[in-house]
């Protein structure tokens, strides 16, 4: 009997210890405190009058931006809104955002606002969860119509209704290079596709040993492996077939295995699947599949390759001490089109959708579309690496030269902007077969036709 009692005592003690450990681990992070009380000048808050007095109201926001250093600029950018309206914004970031958000919506636990990185995901959310995504309010519509190109309103709309306001933007049609290496060899920036191929051939001829190659690339990205290759295809689709065909391709009014698409994939293959052109410093064509996209451009710094096609946000990957700029260690040129008078631009961006029909939530969404927010965000991002397509964004607030260049390209009237196609396609394609088949195209040497056929087959019926 006494033995049994001791045993029971031990059980209790053990359980208590386990609980103790759990309790110690569950230290919740303190919520960001909204300092609403500060007496802001009327002048500073003039632009916020339309939002009304929101004292005591709270808006929750959920994004995929999780690391403290990246989230802080966002949290800081909400401060003017908090100070002028009295509302409190609660920020939450998760790396698992794309998987989490649909689950939270289905479970009735949706955030008030979410940053959605792909219009394709927005479409899925709106169509799968009738009535859960709330249409944007009048103020938000007015801001987007006043301060953004109409195309951006289109990306935030589903079936003719406008839901999500654009927040961030990036430009993908860039080729990174080393100005010094180009100057040393007397190479000039190509302005047409043919010039770029001629330059590539020249680099091959100048380096007969094969140790130095014109291009380097990498598409490994964990669960998203393959996306950098889809960007290549999109950029070339825009250049070879023009924006109209590009739109038809994206909304599936032409088949994915249309001869035009197959031709574009083949054209990408003249660079990406050419052992003479790739993969500088990393090996042959197949190494593209296993090279992380974050490291793929770095051989430029060792002089092992000359060009690397990647979006504006690649500036963050060069590492400490590498100066990015026209006179720096690395710089980017616009990926040339077939001839110099067209200027198609491929880009991406995030959008803020709302899931609660409350005035403070609608006001906050409108604020995110306003020039006040874009400028506050630029101010709150002292290291750069961010821009929006807001027409009233002050270009002088962008500290990084690449951000400035991107903004100039975005606001160039000659430029024809198109959104990253894989982000617009249904996720079974845009975040699935398109990535996967492009990976096979490089890693297993599948033919362009087979790849296009397989993607067409995976396009969901509804």
């Amino acid at each position: 009997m006494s033995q049994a009692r001791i045993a029971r005592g031990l059980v209790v003690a053990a359980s208590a210890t386990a609980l103790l450990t759990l309790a110690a681990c569950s230290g919740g992070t303190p919520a960001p405190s909204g300092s609403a009380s500060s007496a802001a000048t009327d002048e500073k808050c003039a632009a916020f009058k339309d939002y009304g007095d929101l004292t005591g109201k709270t808006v929750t926001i959920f994004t995929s931006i999780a690391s403290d250093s990246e989230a802080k600029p966002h949290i800081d950018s909400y401060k003017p809104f908090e100070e002028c309206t009295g509302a409190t914004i609660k920020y939450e970031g998760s790396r698992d955002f794309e998987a989490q958000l649909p689950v939270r919506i289905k479970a009735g636990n949706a955030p008030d606002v979410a940053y959605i990185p792909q219009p394709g995901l927005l479409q899925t959310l709106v169509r799968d969860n009738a009535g859960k995504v709330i249409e944007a309010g009048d103020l938000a519509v007015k801001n987007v119509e006043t301060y953004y190109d109409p195309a951006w309103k289109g990306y935030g709309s589903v079936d003719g209704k406008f839901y999500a306001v654009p927040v961030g933007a990036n430009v993908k049609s860039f080729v990174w290079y080393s100005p010094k290496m180009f100057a040393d060899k007397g190479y000039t920036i190509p302005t047409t596709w043919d010039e770029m191929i001629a330059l590539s051939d020249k680099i091959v001829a100048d380096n007969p040993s094969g140790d130095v190659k014109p291009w380097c690339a990498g598409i490994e990205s964990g669960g998203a492996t393959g996306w950098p290759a889809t960007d290549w295809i999109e950029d070339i689709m825009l250049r070879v077939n023009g924006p109209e065909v590009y739109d038809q391709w994206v909304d599936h009014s032409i088949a994915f295995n249309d001869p035009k698409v197959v031709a574009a994939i083949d054209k990408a293959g003249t660079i990406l699947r050419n052992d003479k052109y790739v993969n500088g410093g990393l090996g042959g064509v197949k190494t593209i599949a296993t090279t992380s996209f974050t490291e793929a451009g770095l051989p430029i710094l060792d002089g092992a390759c000359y060009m690397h096609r990647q979006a504006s946000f690649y500036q963050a990957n060069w590492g400490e001490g590498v100066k990015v700029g026209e006179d720096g260690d690395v710089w980017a040129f616009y990926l040339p089109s077939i001839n110099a008078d067209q200027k198609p631009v491929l880009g991406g961006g995030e959008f803020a959708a709302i899931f609660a029909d409350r005035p403070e939530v609608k006001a906050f969404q409108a604020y995110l579309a306003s020039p006040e927010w874009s400028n506050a965000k630029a101010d709150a991002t002292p290291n750069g690496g961010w821009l929006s397509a807001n027409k009233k964004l002050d270009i002088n607030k962008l500290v990084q030269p690449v951000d400035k260049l991107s903004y100039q390209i975005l606001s160039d009237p000659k430029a024809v902007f198109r959104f990253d196609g894989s982000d617009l396609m249904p996720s079974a394609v845009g975040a699935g077969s398109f990535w996967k088949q492009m990976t096979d195209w490089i890693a297993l040497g599948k033919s362009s036709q087979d790849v296009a056929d397989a993607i067409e087959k995976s396009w969901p019926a509804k």
Partner: protein
Amino acid sequence: MLWLLKPETLPEKFAVMILAILLFALVMGLVLAVVDRPKLPKWVPVAGYLGPAVLLITFGLLWPGMLTIKNSFFSRTGADFVGLENYVRIFTDETFVTVIINTLLWVAFVPTIATALGLVYAVLVDRTRVEKFAKTLIFLPMAISMVGASIIWKFVYEYKPASQPQIGLMNQVMVWLGLEPQQWLLNPPLNTFMLIMVMIWIQAGFAMTVLSAAIKAIPDEIIEAAKVDGVTGMKLFWWVTVPSVRPAIVVVLTTIAMGTLKAFDVVYTMTGGNFNTSIIANEFYIQSFNQGQPQIGAALAVILFVMIAPIIIYNVRQMRISEGER
């Protein structure tokens, strides 16, 4: 009293913690006190212990399980009944067929090789001076998480072109032998076997431990009788040791087979299912959560369930038999 729900300062957190422990101790004490009462009708403690388990299994396992089976017969949004369409797609689409073949390769090779290695190892080190040390060596991988093991092996397989210094062990060995470095994880079907090797490395320790215990349980008289009859070496191993530990071998084989069918971490961490290496457990996660195809994910989960179920039944039966013998 709001701070009880949202403790912010350190003393508040400690107060909440102590309160939680007290509550827990109170409930446990209550349970133990109640159980000791002889006057209580028997169904009260039985219901008290079984109830929570039954509830948790019903709503945490059975109910979601039924939903998954239902979803696998419906369209993506769950609105239309599509019959066997999702299954037809899995068994006709080339990508999914590869997934199923890979899963079969895994379940054919991992349990057999891991068990064989574990058994031979257990026999070889049995009753030697270095037994403990040798066993620890092969058991250590069991202590590492699957993701950790996968990352270690990813480095072992790491590829750099021949012109550069290698950082992966395998390719460095290749270079020392005067061969070209290989992309181990890229070329099918070799890459699937490279992943299978990782799983074997993890599981062999488990097989060795269980089989070693079973070998030690063989009565000395049997071994001695066999030796008197003149059986030694390989014959002793095949005709005495293996039959004596047969129930244990079956349990180990089936347990590893179940673990293999459910193995997600190795593939997800090392190749992400690319380059024709995906297996069902990995593919159903990708389909459900990354690609927004929950109906295909559900169908894959059901296929996995159908594959595992007979192994579990066999495993349980064998365990009962081996327990009955003791």
